[in-house]
């Protein structure tokens, strides 16, 4: 009956490789020949991703039947090292196939969306190759079963993220943001490299299937390696203390934010942690949970005070990634992965809706420009929005559904996954708390509860600011009231991804029972791998939902009639200042890292100056010495030589005039000599 599924394991591996390499082909074609193609080749990138998506669906269903494709080839063989030291290995199992599906689907939707969103933008040619190569790197990262190869793709993913954040490279902010993202990821990558080195010296291989066998009992070094990987994931998945790069990364194009900085790349950390759970000891897991709990609360609060439409979503992403960290840390990776899965869709939906709103604002700007009213307002500032409910009805519906999913209301996908995580966190706190006789562990579920409340609050605030009330741009530019600017029509390329993502934000695709995460096919299938406890108490669920509803109610009460004015800064309270500036984390980092760095550099230059002076002095001494030596050489030694030569020249000068070259003189000498000889001869004879 399942004849369309791939049953041969080799074919499974080949298909997954094809899935990963198709976007790479698209990248190569577009990068080197994109300018020649019609429409700059965007259709080519989208169709390649489309094929990848179809393949990934087939792979997904094949794998979900219970198959696992593993392939491993030797990469480098060195004398004295075992055969499995350097391998290139691919593993297609439930974990990787669902990630592939997520990445391909969202990448496809983002490609389609971008064809409309990025139309006519600067550097359109360059945009799609970047997206393709990102998809390739992400798929490679997912498929690889070798930590070294994973690390390479990890870097590649970070690099493409850097390229896309700085896509509008004429904007200074974007360039700075891309550099910041890259540098903060570097800190995390340091942890990855350390972990790789430790694992190499412990096990002599990077291949996960061999590592699994060779790491038995948790030792200090294994814990350290685990912490290294956690640091890498903290960097990539934007957790405290390295999360400050993600809000700035919103300078990239909005579809990119949806794909990379909400749905896929930032989830790579969670995925990696889930893959290496076998080597994460109890201490490491506790660290992960604590980091996640800190992050989710720390980033949920600033989200309340952002005015940039995308920054709210960015902080919300960080917060949700914190939930996933807690899920991993609580020892229930399937809950974390489930949240990753659902979050990818509803957060991409939110970002793409936000993109549609921004697109609309941009269009107004264009129309105004053509009508002669130039006004360079910030198209992402929520203080200029409002009342968009009637203007963008579809976007409104999608946004509401996705936001409700994010808040965790029942009947939606976010509810299922969030409940699973909070339930797991509560169970974990109970177990660890009683084992260690400490209530510190209860801070983690507490943080989850509080964050659930604030999530509802900031999403309500954003919803009200975007879609309800008056269209505040009209207060800013009164001309708009009279002008007709309702000739906006939603392109199918924009609405289709929105509808798809909206559909994936409700409970039906994930579970038939909207109230029980345990009954979700996804969790059940993954539970066969991780085999963790999935019995969650109902009290937790009720509390969370009650808190979410309370958050919504509070949000409606607080923000319903609030008048927001963009130009005039109302007198800012201390809390607003603190949270609006993201806890002054940037400032703290500046004072902790940058200022001492500069100071160190300053003192180093001072020391350098002293060293320079010393070197100068030595050089001067050398010069003086060499002058003396040169004088000695020239006058004494050369003089002696010249004296010898002079003597020789003097002696030769005495005789050289004989050789005058005149034959007659020679003859005269000869004659004289002969006469002398004759004279002597006769004298001698007598």
């Amino acid at each position, binding site marked *: 009956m399942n004849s369309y599924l791939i049953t041969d394991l080799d074919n499974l591996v080949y298909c997954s490789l094809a899935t990963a390499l198709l976007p790479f082909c698209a990248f190569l074609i577009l990068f080197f020949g994109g300018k020649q193609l019609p429409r700059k080749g965007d259709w080519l990138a989208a169709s390649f991703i489309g094929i990848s998506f179809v393949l990934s669906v087939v792979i997904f269903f094949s794998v979900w039947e219970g198959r696992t494709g593993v392939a491993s080839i030797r990469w480098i063989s060195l004398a004295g090292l075992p055969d499995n030291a350097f391998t290139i290995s691919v593993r297609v199992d439930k974990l990787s196939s669902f990630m592939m599906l997520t990445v391909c689907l969202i990448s496809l939707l983002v490609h389609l969306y971008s064809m409309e969103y990025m139309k006519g933008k600067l550097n359109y040619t360059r945009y799609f190759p970047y997206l393709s190569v990102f998809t390739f790197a992400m798929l490679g990262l997912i498929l690889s079963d070798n930590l070294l190869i994973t690390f390479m793709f990890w870097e590649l993913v970070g690099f493409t993220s850097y390229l896309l954040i700085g896509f509008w490279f004429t904007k200074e902010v974007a360039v700075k943001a891309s550099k910041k993202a890259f540098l903060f990821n570097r800190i995390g990558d340091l942890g990855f490299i350390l972990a790789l080195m430790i694992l190499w010296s412990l096990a002599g291989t990077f291949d996960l299937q061999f590592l699994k066998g060779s790491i038995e009992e948790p030792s200090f070094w294994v814990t350290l390696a685990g912490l290294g990987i956690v640091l890498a994931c903290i960097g990539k998945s934007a957790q405290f203390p390295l999360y400050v790069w993600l809000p700035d990364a919103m300078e990239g194009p909005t579809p990119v934010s949806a794909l990379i900085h909400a749905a896929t790349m930032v989830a790579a950390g969670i995925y990696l942690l889930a893959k290496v759970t076998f080597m994460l000891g109890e201490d490491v897991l506790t660290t992960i949970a604590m980091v996640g709990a800190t992050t989710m609360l720390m980033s949920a609060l600033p989200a309340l005070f952002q005015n940039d439409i995308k920054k709210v979503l960015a902080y919300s992403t960080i917060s949700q990634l914190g939930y996933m960290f807690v899920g991993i840390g609580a020892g229930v990776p399937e809950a974390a992965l489930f949240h990753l899965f659902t979050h990818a869709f509803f957060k991409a939906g939110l970002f793409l809706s936000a993109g549609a709103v921004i697109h609309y604002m941009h269009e107004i700007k264009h129309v105004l420009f053509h009508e002669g009213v130039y006004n360079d307002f910030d198209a992402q500032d929520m203080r200029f929005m409002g009342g968009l409910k009637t203007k963008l009805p579809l976007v409104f519906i999608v946004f509401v559904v996705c936001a409700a999913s994010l808040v965790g209301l029942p009947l939606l996908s976010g509810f299922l996954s969030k409940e699973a995580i909070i339930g797991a966190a509560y169970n974990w706190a109970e177990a660890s708390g009683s084992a260690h006789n400490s209530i510190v562990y209860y801070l983690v579920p507490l943080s989850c509860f509080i964050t659930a409340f604030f999530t509802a609050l900031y999403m309500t605030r954003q919803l009200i600011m975007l879609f309800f009330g008056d269209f505040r741009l009209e207060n800013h530019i009164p001309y708009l009231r009279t002008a007709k600017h309702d000739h906006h029509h939603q392109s199918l390329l924009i609405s289709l991804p929105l509808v798809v993502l909206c559909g994936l934000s409700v409970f039906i695709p994930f579970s038939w029972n909207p109230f029980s995460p345990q009954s979700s096919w996804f969790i059940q299938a993954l539970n066969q791998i991780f085999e963790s406890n999935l019995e969650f108490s109902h009290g937790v669920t009720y509390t969370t939902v009650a808190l979410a509803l309370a958050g919504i109610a509070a949000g409606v009460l607080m923000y319903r009639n609030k008048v927001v004015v963009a130009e005039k800064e109302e007198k800012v309270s201390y809390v607003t200042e603190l949270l609006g500036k993201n806890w002054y984390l940037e400032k703290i980092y500046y004072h902790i890292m940058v200022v001492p760095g500069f100071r160190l550099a300053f003192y180093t230059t001072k020391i350098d100056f002293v060293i320079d002076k010393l070197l100068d002095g030595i050089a001067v001494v050398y010069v003086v010495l060499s002058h003396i030596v040169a004088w000695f050489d020239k006058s004494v030694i050369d003089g002696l030589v010249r004296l010898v030569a002079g003597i020789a020249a003097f002696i030769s000068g005495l005789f*050289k005039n*004989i*050789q*005058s*070259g005149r*034959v*007659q003189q020679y003859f005269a000498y000869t*004659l004289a000599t002969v006469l002398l000889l004759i004279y002597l001869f006769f004298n001698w004879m007598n």
Partner: protein
Amino acid sequence: MIPSTHFLIVAAFLFAMGIMILIVKRNAIAALMGIELMLNAVNINLVVFSNLNRQIDGQMFVIFVIVVAVAEAAVGLALLLQVYKNYRTSDLDKITKLKG
């Protein structure tokens, strides 16, 4: 009969003249002529002593000397011609290639 001493005096005079010419004259041809003169002086001596000894071989030798002198003059002139070709002069003071 003229005594042999006169011939010898003439020959010595000629020989001295040849040496003088060879040393003093700047022109290479003149110097060659000096050499010829010396040769002839020697010839006279040969003839004189052959006459004194009443033997013919001295005079025979003179014939050979004259023949060789002819060849030598030819070679000498040919050399001079080549020298002139190369140096564009026959002034012996200017041909000082042998100067060390």
